[in-house]
């Protein structure tokens, strides 16, 4: 129990931070904002999975990935593929009439039909099964991250070069998904998703439930991250980030360690992508490309790249800011975002979490001191009248 407290919850301050975040997500927000905004929060939170993954990969391991959207997108597409097949099967069942039969090929996604594909491609078959979909959602990004990791890290490609390569991969995937219209839904993506195992995900109740599931997923990822960073592996990541050569001369294969954290980050990002699809009910290649990937890095930097919880706040704040400002001042938004990123990295390299750690305790002490001073003053007032 004690070791659980230390390694998962991160001791006293870690527990307080996690309880505050959980209360905010699970109680305060559902009670204070309307269903539309809450759904938006769910959408943002699905991006926070990537920010948490980046804390481990970039903040601790020093591996800057500018293409994390690739893995997020793969998770999203896996989930969307499953939902789409279910939707297609339902349409066929509901309207099993001659009219439908004449218009479409029964049981395959509509976009395939529009592209003259009459038979389900072989790689779509696993997505008929929900357990297989969940497994592939983890396995596909992990395998890709493993291949990229081994290819790059064994050759000691790092830093900016690695970042550029991840970005290129991300772009390649976008092009692949856009051009292979018949297989992926092209530029429109996979739309018109309706039910998950017969449960209509479009109703307000379902949306609410999905929001809570997303929150639980986020909290689970934070707990997992805390545990991982608390093992020797976590300290090894810091060592690799600061003194890669020394780690090698302590008998470790640095490439394997980097590949491992890159794979874990990929799998976690992918889970976020799947939650996104459940929250919004579609998937599009526009969400997978370079721009969102850079946003994800900004979320992490603003929240604090050494803080798992900070990454969640960073995501929510920047995303809200983006929605608000891009509606009010669409032309200025990019400049604002850029300046925020520059400002944070220059003034607060540790992000929001760093600022809270620096100014939080003194402020808290001040409040505590005022609080302690008050009680003697109170009885004095009572005596007066």
């Amino acid at each position, binding site marked *: 129990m004690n070791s659980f407290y230390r390694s998962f919850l991160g001791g006293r301050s870690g527990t307080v931070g996690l309880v505050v975040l959980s209360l905010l997500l699970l109680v305060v927000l559902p009670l204070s904002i309307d269903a539309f905004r809450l759904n938006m929060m769910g959408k943002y939170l699905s991006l926070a999975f990537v920010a948490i993954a980046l804390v481990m990969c970039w903040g601790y391991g020093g591996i800057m990935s500018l293409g994390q959207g690739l893995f997020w997108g793969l998770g999203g597409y896996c989930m969307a593929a499953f939902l789409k097949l279910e939707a297609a099967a339902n349409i066929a069942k509901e309207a099993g009439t001659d009219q439908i039969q004449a218009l479409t090929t029964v049981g395959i996604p509509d976009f395939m039909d529009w592209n003259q594909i009459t038979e389900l491609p072989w790689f779509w078959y696993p997505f008929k099964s929900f357990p297989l979909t969940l497994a592939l959602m983890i396995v596909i990004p992990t395998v890709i991250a493993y291949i990229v990791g081994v290819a790059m890290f064994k050759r000691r490609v790092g830093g900016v070069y690695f970042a550029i390569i991840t970005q290129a991969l991300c772009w390649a995937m976008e092009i692949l998904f856009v051009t292979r219209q018949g297989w992926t839904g092209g530029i429109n993506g996979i739309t018109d998703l309706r039910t998950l195992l017969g449960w209509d995900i479009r109703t307000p109740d379902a949306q609410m439930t999905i929001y809570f599931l997303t929150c639980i997923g986020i909290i689970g990822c934070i707990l997992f991250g805390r545990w991982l960073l608390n*093992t020797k592996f976590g300290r090894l990541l810091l060592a690799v980030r600061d003194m890669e050569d020394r780690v090698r001369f302590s008998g470790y294969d640095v490439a*394997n360690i980097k590949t491992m954290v890159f794979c874990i980050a990929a799998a976690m990002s992918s889970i976020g992508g799947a939650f996104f699809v459940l929250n919004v009910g579609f998937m599009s290649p526009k969400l997978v490309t370079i721009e969102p990937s850079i946003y994800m890095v900004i979320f992490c930097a603003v929240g604090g790249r050494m803080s798992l919880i900070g990454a969640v706040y960073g995501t929510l704040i920047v995303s809200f800011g983006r929605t608000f400002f891009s509606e009010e001042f669409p032309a200025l938004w990019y400049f604002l975002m850029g300046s925020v990123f520059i400002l944070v990295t220059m003034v607060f390299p540790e992000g929001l979490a760093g600022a809270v750690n620096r100014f939080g305790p003194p402020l808290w002490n001040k409040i505590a001191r005022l609080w302690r001073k008050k009680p003697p003053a109170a009885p004095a007032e009572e005596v007066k009248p």
Partner: protein
Amino acid sequence: MIYPHFALELEELTVSFDGFKAVNGVTLYVAKDELRVIIGPNGAGKTTLLDLICGRTKPTDGKITFMDKVLTRLPEQEIVRAGVVRKFQTPSIYPKISVFENLELSHPKGRTAIGAIFFRRTPDVVERIHMVAEQIFLKDLLNKEAEQLSHGQKQWLEIGMLLMADPQLLLLDEPVAGMSVREREQTAELLRSICKGRSAVVIEHDMKFVRRIADKVTVMHQGKVLAEGHMDDIEKDPRVVEVYLGH
């Protein structure tokens, strides 16, 4: 005899950087339990020689053997696992974690990625860390962030990190550089105590220090071995005086 007479054997070792031969046909034998010191003017190829042995630089030609095992083409971590460890000239430690954790990471247990995740801090690991910390004069500073140590303490910590792996050959690049007189004396004592039952190759400029620790001295000049022998003989060698000691 079952065991080889020499622990480390370098044969005709050469490395060429764009035609410049930083190390040129060096042949060197270090006996078991011997503490060898390499001296020589700047640019003589001393640090490059250590880089070659520990695998940081790959030789263009020649052969490196340690305890009958050929190290010439092995990756760095395999060389470490064969029992050869390296200390760098500028202290290279992990700045953001504690002294204890620095030593823990240098323990040979859990060296694979998965092994590191499931590594458990067992009593024997903790005991070993305390033992090494006592040897390197840092036993009261175990919880300090390594970044906050003094320069000399960082040098000691790095030596401690090497000791954690219980190596058979230590490669030390200027272990007393930047240390105070008092620290130098402590370090000389430390080196002599840790080199018992191990071989060591040390690069050093401080002649007083060299005299205190060396079994044998090798003088390098322009990538080649100029002279080799006991300190007393080396000091009298006119060639050595000419290129190094005289200046």
